[in-house]
């Protein structure tokens, strides 16, 4: 919505460039230069990782260099790092693990989060304020304080460290993060719900047929955040799934150990970079595709608190 407005505005006020005062010209030129410099700073590391993924430089003895090198642009490019990544490492397994965890986390936590948000916003029940206060207090404890406890509980109970446990850890607490969703539902007019009630619709039906269809932005936002969470999280996955179980790693943990783990054999920076590219491309594509919802959601969430 904002995009459109902006375009209209720009067209309306765009003066003929020749008519601009010279100070305006200079300030505009300065702004362009500054922005381009900033963009270069922000893109510099990202481009570097992508370049490294394709970097296939060889030592004189025929082995691949693979480490961090001091020149930015590669002297030779190829697909070798990706080949190594998919044939010599557990990367496909990590990727599958993360995908499974992400899909289930997304479904579970979106459902939990939406139902709590809606109730907190639209239903005035007796325990509402205490509930909100407890949720706020819980949010102030360092998140992985409970994670460490979960880790010890799982370990003490002899429960195998499974992806299922990780899914539960990611999504079980999702209901506590209802503030963003509540902010959205607060803007849904109560009259809409009242009218449906007068027509005799039950609460479940109101939620399913009236609220859900108009909540697409917030649902997409919540789903996006919970789906990308497992791809980005490093510490929960590492603690819950253990450091030894290579076949249980998610991409973040697996790639970290590829760089800083015990197995020297695979600690190649360029292969790591190839892995990063494989992870980043789908996530970035998703973000860009749903950019509108992401911006709306994060703005609404932090603006309303």
């Amino acid at each position: 919505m904002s995009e459109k407005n902006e375009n209209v505005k720009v067209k309306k006020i765009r003066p003929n460039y020749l008519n601009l005062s010279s100070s305006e010209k200079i300030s505009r030129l300065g702004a362009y230069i500054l922005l381009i410099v900033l963009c270069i700073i922000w893109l510099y590391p990202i481009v570097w990782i992508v370049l490294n993924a394709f970097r296939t430089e060889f030592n004189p003895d025929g082995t691949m260099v693979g480490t961090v090198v001091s020149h930015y642009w590669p002297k030779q490019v190829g697909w070798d790092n990706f080949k190594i990544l998919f044939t010599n490492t557990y990367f496909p397994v990590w990727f599958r693990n993360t995908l499974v965890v992400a899909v289930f986390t997304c479904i579970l936590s979106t459902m939990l989060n939406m139902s709590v948000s809606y109730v907190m916003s639209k239903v005035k029940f007796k325990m509402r304020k205490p509930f909100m206060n407890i949720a706020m207090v819980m949010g102030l404890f360092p998140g992985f304080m409970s994670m460490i406890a979960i880790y010890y509980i799982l370990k003490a109970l002899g429960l195998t460290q499974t992806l299922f446990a990780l899914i539960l850890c990611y999504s079980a607490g999702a209901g506590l993060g209802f503030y963003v969703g509540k902010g959205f539902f607060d803007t849904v007019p109560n009259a809409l719900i009242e009218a449906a009630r007068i027509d005799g619709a039950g609460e479940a039906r109101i939620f399913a047929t009236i609220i859900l269809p108009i909540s697409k932005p917030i649902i997409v936002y919540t789903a996006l955040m919970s789906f990308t969470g497992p791809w980005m999280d490093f510490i929960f996955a590492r603690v819950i799934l253990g450091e030894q179980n290579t076949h249980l790693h998610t991409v973040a943990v697996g790639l970290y150990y590829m760089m800083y783990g015990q197995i020297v054999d695979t600690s190649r920076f360029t292969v790591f970079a190839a892995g990063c590219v494989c992870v980043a491309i789908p996530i970035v594509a998703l973000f860009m595709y749903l950019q509108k919802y992401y911006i709306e959601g994060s703005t609404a969430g932090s603006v309303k608190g």
Partner: protein
Amino acid sequence: MDRKKYGISGFFQRIAQPFINFYKRFMDGSIGTKMSHFIMGAGNIYHGQIIKGLIYFLIQVGYVVFMVTCPKVNNTPLGYKAFINFVTLGTQEGDIFTPADNSMLMLLFGVVTFGITLMYLFAYNSSIKSSYKADKDLKNYGKVTTFRHDLKEMFGNRFYIAMLTPATLGAVVFTLLPTLFMILIAFTNFDKERQAGLKLFDWVGLDNFTTFFTNPSGEIAARFLPVLGWTLIWAFFATFLNYYGGILLALLINKKGLKGKVIFRAIFVLTIAIPQFISLLAMRNLIGEYGPLQSFLIKVGIMSEPMSFLANAPNVWIARITIILINLWVGIPYSMLLASGAIMNIPESLYEAARIDGASKFTILRKITMPYIVFITTPYLISSFIGNITSFNIIYLLTGGMPKVTGGYIAGGTDLLVTWLYKLTIDEQQHNLGAVIGILTFLLTSTVTLITYRRSKSYKEEDAFQ
């Protein structure tokens, strides 16, 4: 019931209310309701609500069986024995032939059994209430509700209970219970020497806290204040530099008449979308001794020879400043997005009016744009301050808390309270000290929140939009 009660008397009234209700229902209720006080569901069966009554009755049977038989998990009993164990934390010292009692599981199961008992009491209360309601219905309407009707009600007026239950259960089991458990650990001597199942640990009261505060020469205490100090410095700079950096960038991108806004913004959104572990590890290598940045700086003549800016930095402050700078790279795009949102929402009429009054561009920026952005984004500022106090990834992935400092007690020069907590518990098994740090972190974040949130408009006017 919903009359607002304030102050201390209101507080006691609120606590007393359930007991008063309890007494009233017992005296007022039918014989069935009276029976319900002893056998759950009796009142419902008395009124012919067989299925509902049976469900309540089964809950009671289940609870009693659970409490009496004390089912064992990993050789540690739940049920009533768990309460006893919770107090003693185990009596059987281990030797070669018999394993020691598992103090940690005993502590945990004590908490679990307590939680189950609370839920049982809740069900118990609701069974009496339901029976009492049936009494009333019989008196007022001449009939009680059917099970089918109750079920329908579950999807009608009481649908919110069905919606809240799974989320609440999840939060209780995976957040509340573990957090309680960690808080309790802070009052024990559960440390490296007393591994669970090998050696008993016991309650020590406030000893762990006194180690932190009253023994300034002690290793931990000597390390605590520096780590706390750095945590605060970090949170302050990380929050405010990112915040104002983001606003400036947003102003720049949204400058009137500038083309390519969408592209510029997309480039910065791109950096948000890339998983942090990737961008942080990339940064770490990019600016490392062997990375291209340093070789470039040497070529240009700014540096003379490669050095570490992070984990092996010669001076702690080099590492600290580098972290804060890298965090700018990570955080500015995000606050830019928020500030952009705010800027686009500023009513054009405000600018018009200012221009008519002959305000200069700088005045407009200072008097209209900035106050507006700051007003809108203050809640974000607070939550990002708290987020920075407990931010883990950036420190752990960039330096792992290093460089080493003298008398570090595991904490390196860039360790925050939370990364120290992680190291103490996961790497060093000093669970009790880790738990104390967790509690102190909580106190820190909650103080900040209390001071700021309570004053902020969005808290006071929480219901303004309803």
